[in-house]
């Protein structure tokens, strides 16, 4: 990483960290959120929901950037993220 130039405005860049919220009983197990999460935060769980579907599980919570794609791609209004914190950017990030 030592070859990477450090941007001048690095100190101003904040990286959002999101928190996933999931209402399992609404999920119909289509898998869209798992497939299209750009940072692979979600995985399909082995668990059965009340309706008999496999809801997603937040496998890598630290990777969530609160981009909101899971919210908009979910046909069931079952999953969304909220901003948990913003962390300082670093070139190792």
């Amino acid at each position, binding site marked *: 990483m030592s070859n990477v130039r450090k941007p001048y405005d690095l100190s101003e860049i904040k990286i959002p960290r999101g928190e996933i*919220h*999931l*209402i*399992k*009983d*609404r999920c*119909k*197990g*289509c*898998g*869209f959120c798992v*497939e*299209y999460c750009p940072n692979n935060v979600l995985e399909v769980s082995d668990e059965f929901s009340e309706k008999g*579907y496999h809801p997603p599980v937040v496998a890598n919570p630290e990777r969530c950037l609160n981009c909101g*794609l899971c*919210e*908009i*791609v*979910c*046909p*069931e*209004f*079952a999953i*969304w993220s909220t901003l948990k914190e913003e962390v300082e950017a670093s070139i190792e990030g």
Partner: protein
Amino acid sequence: MAMAEKGKVEEKHPMEQLLRMDRMPHIWCPGCGIGISVTAFVSALKKLEFDLNKMCVVSGIGCTGRVAGYIKLDSFHTTHGRAIPFATGIKMANPDLKVVVFSGDGDLVSIGGNHFIHAARRNIDITVILVNNFIYAMTGGQVAPTTPETAYTTTSPFGNFETPANIPQLAEAAGAVYVARWTALHVRRLEKSIVEAINKPGFSLVEIVAPCSMYYSRINRLGAGIDMMRFYHENSIIKHDEPTENLAVGYQKQIIVGKFIDRERPGFIESNRRWSAEAKG
């Protein structure tokens, strides 16, 4: 209301204020694209600088026809094919309202095809969000005017031999001022198009190619909704301003998406006002 994760009580989805949560779960099957069309729409509503109390949603009949029942705005679930003229009546009677028609391909271009053409010709200021799943799904998977050639349906058991409608071309020819098409996968772009369409004065159309995971996909052995989404991922190509004559959709062929028409034409309301004022003298 369902409990969310352990220890948290009644979490609220950020779109809940614009959805009728007491009507959930909705009727759409797992992997259906209509739910995504709704989230894209609601997401677009939040970006509008407009009093949403002044917005009406009108649907016809069919799977997409049920959208009106889930959106928490003044909403009308009308008769099969008649969403556009119903919306036309609302808009003419109160031009201050924004009127959005949210319905399916069979509803809007088959039984309601004539209204579609004439609303575009008249350039009445409404936005039409048309979910195209290539099939009559509510009735169990019959052939539609949008079913691609050779695709199986319950009433084309040997493959569809009719030529399907090219909806953007139809809209352009009839006089629509804004025409875009996206798949259910292109949610962000779709959301942006819906914002543009609603803000555009005149007849605007956003077509959404969406998976019918229960009928179209099953009878054609295309897998689940997710498999159709993967197909869109691999086979759709964004070509803004593509001539609409090139936008026919073939069976499991490339789907061209993008914004194709964005033009100006005088609309019904302003022409009517001008005519009326001149006549009055």
